[in-house]
């Protein structure tokens, strides 16, 4: 067990060490505040602001959209439907299957739909495809959290004359910490996934100003720069990886902080 723990911990440090040591030299204010200049990919100046903003747009958009779909589903199968009804079981099974589908398949699916409608790569298509990717993660994690809320709590709100909707609100409130973790999980998955956005969001050097424009993303920015033969560009890829990791780290710490704050009244 100790060996396993050491392996896990040391691989985390190895990853961090690799990206920081290789990417540190290229980290600069320019990197995060500028879009690529002409010749950026052969080592000229510029930054990856386009990819940072693009990733944030896609992640926030898809998380909000994902929540709009998963919250009602999860509340339905936990509060509105009877316990262990066949509908709830089928829904859970569906999410489990969707959960296991590789992200490249979502990317290909999104691409196929776009081709069918004659659409070009765009921020919107990226958001929609990433939403598909994270819904099973969000819904299944929130489902587990809601299932763990004690029956007595919903009994209590029902006994006070609460409706199912009012009970849902109490259960959501009770499970805020767990739900934040669920959101963070899907956020991390959305921001770090390259395969879904490869065909759907495209890649561009400018920051998108509307949903119809293509957008760059951090994972693809890393991918394209890393495949360059030029050392400087490769190092910038590691720099981008550092930025991606830092964003995820900040989110993770923020969710810890907020879940503590929100669970103040929780028993």
């Amino acid at each position: 067990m100790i060996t396993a723990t050491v392996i896990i911990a040391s691989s985390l440090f190895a990853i961090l060490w690799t990206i920081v040591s290789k990417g540190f030299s290229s980290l600069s204010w320019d990197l995060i505040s500028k879009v690529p200049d002409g010749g950026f990919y052969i080592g000229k100046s510029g930054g990856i602001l386009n990819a940072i903003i693009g990733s944030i747009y896609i992640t926030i958009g898809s998380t909000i959209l994902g929540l709009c779909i998963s919250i009602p589903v999860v509340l339905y199968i936990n509060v509105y439907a009877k316990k262990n009804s066949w509908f709830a079981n089928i829904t859970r099974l569906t999410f489990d299957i969707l959960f296991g589908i590789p992200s490249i398949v979502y990317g290909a699916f999104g691409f196929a739909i776009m081709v069918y409608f004659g659409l070009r790569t765009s921020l919107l298509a990226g958001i929609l495809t990433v939403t598909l990717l994270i819904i099973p993660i969000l819904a299944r994690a929130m489902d587990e959290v809601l299932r763990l809320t004690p029956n007595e709590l919903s009994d209590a709100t029902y006994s006070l004359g609460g409706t199912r909707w009012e009970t849902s609100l109490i259960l959501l409130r009770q499970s805020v910490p767990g739900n934040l973790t669920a959101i963070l999980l899907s956020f991390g998955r959305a921001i770090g996934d390259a395969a879904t956005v490869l065909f759907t969001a495209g890649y561009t050097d400018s920051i998108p100003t509307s949903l119809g424009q293509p957008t760059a993303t951090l994972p693809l920015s890393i991918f394209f720069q890393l495949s360059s033969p030029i050392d400087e560009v490769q190092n910038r890829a590691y720099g981008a990886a550092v930025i991606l990791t830092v964003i995820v780290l900040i989110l993770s710490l923020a969710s810890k902080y907020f879940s503590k704050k929100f669970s103040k009244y929780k028993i």
Partner: protein
Amino acid sequence: MTFDSPHIRVKDLNVHIGGNHILKNINIDIPDKKVTSFIGPSGCGKTTLLKTLNRLLDRNTDVKIDGQVLLDGQDIYAKGVEVTDIRQKMGLLSQRPFPLPMSIYDNIAYGPRLHGTTKKKDLDIIVEKYLRGVALWDEVKDRLKGSPARLSIGQQQRLCLARGLAVEPEIILGDEPTSALDPVSTQRIEELFLQLKDQYTLVLVTHILRQARRVSDYIVFLYMGEIIEFGPTEEVLLHPKEKLTQEYVKGYIS
């Protein structure tokens, strides 16, 4: 045993859960403004019976309920009955207290707010009234905005009782409400029950015979889903007519 105008009358109630016959031909009258206790060994159906009274059992799948539960003569399982109205008439105390995830004040104000009381002034009065009613006011008046998680478990149970009373029910259902509490807290809850029966009908599930004797006016003894004996407390506990009741009271079966 029957009463002329019982608060709750259970008629020919049969409950099946997943193919098991949990409650068999239950017929009881629960008298108004008295304490009626359900006793019996674990698994005998007493909690199930309690939960059929406020329709909390409906939420599960594979539950089949036949028969009638009449509340003041109205069948709560009839079509078109508003379940939330029925439940609002019955406060529930569960085995372990579960305060809502909000402040002490909001816990009490939650029910009244659901039912239309929104003015802060009115809510302040309600909160103080019911917290005083369960002798919790002096202990928490300085931290009404604080978390109920910091209260002792006995205080939490009294908070839950006050929360239930604040929606002005007619009946209080207690599902072994003292089983998680220490002796002192248990005693306080029992004293509250004795005060409350002036205004409310109480139905308790308990597995502690001494508690049943201390607080209840009537006792229902259940065994394997059937009512074995129903009568005044002293009669059932001291002079049981049925052999099963005798054995249970003496401690041969549990």
